[in-house]
């Protein structure tokens, strides 16, 4: 199937259109809020919350007996929030560290959720099948109303984000300063945490409990590599998230037996890997290139300063010397010599070299900072 055909199919086919839109919106909103989670060093909070939401789903079902997704998500939201605030309680009130608190809440809530789910499954109620779709997510079960809900929540998120942009930003980078300026840091903190919980709960149906944390982290971690600016990062993360959603859906729709959630996560992970390697400022590739270049420059400087020290002893700085005397000096290679010639620091004549006036001046200023010419 080629691309055009696929796009046509997305527009015409109800299920595919719903899923594509749903995953795209979900990716955008999780990417947006994930940026804050990553920068606040709460990356694993997403993992904990998504697991902690499970008992809420089960209890909501037990109470109402209906499988209506909004009710279940409300239950998930409540139990996710309880989990989050318990984590904060553990961290602030006891000497247990954040990793222990996260792991504890994650596993205990999830285990309790499993207990409830298996308990429900034994109940004589034919309606219970399909609750476990929240475990691994089934994008195929998305319907248009789910997408509308996602869109509304995303709009709300965007609105609050724009409204409290400067508060969020200052809380993110300098909490103490925000406090001294008189911002109510606690309220802002709770606000943003609640929105993160909300976004996670929204994604449960699509990608499931286990993979939700990657949806939150991966786009943000990828976006972080390309910029140092918060607004650009949030925008990029939303874009990456949406694109992984669309692309992941496309891959899983065109193949047999591929559930959408894992594919989206893999696509997002590929984004992260690509960003780690190829981002121009922080990326590993360019960092390595810069590293090698710096080393070369240093070698070049070493050669030049060696030449300078020889030339200094002569009255005429352009006095020719044989290349041979460079041989027992480590920084010298044919390549560096050639480079020096290119830069017009050295002239070659047969197997003799001599410093030019320009080379002499550069070399004499090499190790004191006054000479600011870009090397």
């Amino acid at each position, binding site marked *: 199937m080629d691309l055009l055909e696929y796009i046509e199919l997305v527009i015409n086919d109800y299920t595919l259109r719903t899923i594509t839109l749903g995953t795209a919106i979900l990716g955008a909103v999780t990417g947006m809020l994930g940026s804050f989670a*990553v920068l606040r*060093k*709460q*990356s*694993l909070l*997403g*993992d904990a919350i998504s*697991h902690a939401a499970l008992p809420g789903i089960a209890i909501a079902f037990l109470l109402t007996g209906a499988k209506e997704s909004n009710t279940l998500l409300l239950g998930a939201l409540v139990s996710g929030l309880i989990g989050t605030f318990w984590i904060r*309680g*553990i961290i602030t*009130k*006891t*000497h*247990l*560290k954040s*990793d*222990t608190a*996260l*792991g*504890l809440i*994650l*596993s*205990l809530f*999830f*285990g*309790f*959720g*499993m*207990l*409830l*789910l*298996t*308990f429900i499954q*034994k109940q004589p109620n034919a309606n219970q099948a399909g609750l*476990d779709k929240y*475990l*691994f997510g089934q994008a195929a079960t998305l319907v248009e109303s789910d997408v509308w809900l996602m869109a509304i929540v995303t709009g709300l998120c965007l609105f609050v984000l724009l409204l409290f942009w400067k508060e969020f930003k200052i809380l993110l980078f300098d909490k103490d300063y925000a406090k001294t300026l008189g911002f109510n840091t606690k309220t802002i903190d709770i606000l943003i945490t609640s929105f993160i919980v909300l976004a996670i709960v929204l994604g449960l149906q699509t990608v499931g409990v*286990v*993979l939700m*944390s*990657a949806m*939150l*982290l*991966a786009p943000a*971690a990828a976006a*972080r*590599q390309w910029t140092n600016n918060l607004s650009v990062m949030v925008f990029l993360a939303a874009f990456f998230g949406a694109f992984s959603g669309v692309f992941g859906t496309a891959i899983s729709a065109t193949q047999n*037996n*591929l*559930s959408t*959630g*894992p*594919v989206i*996560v*893999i696509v997002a*992970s590929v984004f*992260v890997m690509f960003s*780690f390697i190829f981002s121009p400022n*922080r990326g*590993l590739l360019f960092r390595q290139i810069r590293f090698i270049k710096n080393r070369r420059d240093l070698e070049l400087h070493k050669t030049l300063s060696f030449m300078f020290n020889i030339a200094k002893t002569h009255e005429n700085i352009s006095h020719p010397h044989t290349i041979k005397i460079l041989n027992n000096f480590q920084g010298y290679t044919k390549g560096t010599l050639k480079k020096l010639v290119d830069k017009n620091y050295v002239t070659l004549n047969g197997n003799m070299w001599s410093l030019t006036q320009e080379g002499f001046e550069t070399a004499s200023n090499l190790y004191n900072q006054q000479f600011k010419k870009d090397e």
Partner: protein
Amino acid sequence: MSSAQLEIQLIASLVAIACAIPGTFLVLRKMAMISDAISHSILPGIVIGFFITQDLNSPLLIVLAALTGVITVVLVEQIQKTGLVKEDTAIGLVFPALFSIGVIMIAKNANDVHLDVDAVLLGELAFAPFDRLLISGIDVGPKSLWIIGTILLITVGLLFAFFKELKLSTFDAGLAASLGFSPVAIHYGLMTVSSITTVGAFDAVGAILVVALMIAPAASAYLLTTDLKKMLFLSILFGVFSAISGYWVAHWLDASIAGSITTMLGLLFLVVYLFAPSKGLIAVMYREKQQKIEVSLLTFLLHLKNHNEENERHVNHLREHINWQKIRAKTVVDLALKNNMITIDNQIVSLTEKGDDFTSQAIDYIITNEDAQIEDMKDDFFLFRG
């Protein structure tokens, strides 16, 4: 109680002990989330092992899965080393990716074999006694009992052999390194043991719930003691208690055994979290409240010491001046009266000799921060107990 029930409880208890030992060290080393990552990312290892052997209990499967666990740890460390993201982000990136690969491999290839994600993640202890190990035709007990028993034996052996190295490198990695114990070797040793335990326990309690058995008993024990040996002992005790009581709760509710063991662990932690002496929530909040009152008392006494004028020491003025609510002011004045630190004479408050002494001592302590001067005050005041 039938023999199958006994066997289930035995397996559950052994899993609990095998998890509690590495779990204690993970919690102390602030690496609890690594166990969560491992428990997810062993999935591709299990799947590959299963494709090769077609048997969920084969030793090769355990080796491969444990290897994936160690690979996870290495990957996390490598990503973290690049400095591009923080450690927790690295963990959060690695395990969902590996887990997704596992899920996709199952979906693509294992349609007609007995392996689904639920089985790996959630496990079913109730079926464990039916998978027997036969040695030359003789039934020697359930397979998973042997697997987890072997793992436990190795873990305990390693624990006794390397207890002092583990202890030292956990609490003072720098000292351990300078004494010549390789922190790297101990770190990877611990990671390997955790991986193997996770894998060995997955078909009994499920990979995710292994995390609960590792972290929850250790965290509860950590709130009760600061002695490593006691902590190990308590976490084992908590683990076994939850395993057995969890089994009976599941029996009664007719629900997942792993789920109810975790729920018992959760209840246990909740009780310890609330009521632990000196580190529980209630104790901490009580202490904070006392400290708050005592700080107020000190402020009040300092104010009295600074002012000799009668109008500054009038009861009503005090409330205005220090800006306290009525009730809080009354509490503080009552406390001071009870301790004979002030006398109230015709609505004018003045310090007694004892109060004067106390205030000077407290000021000295605050200024010099030397503990010796306040030894005798520690018994009466939370504030000076640190």
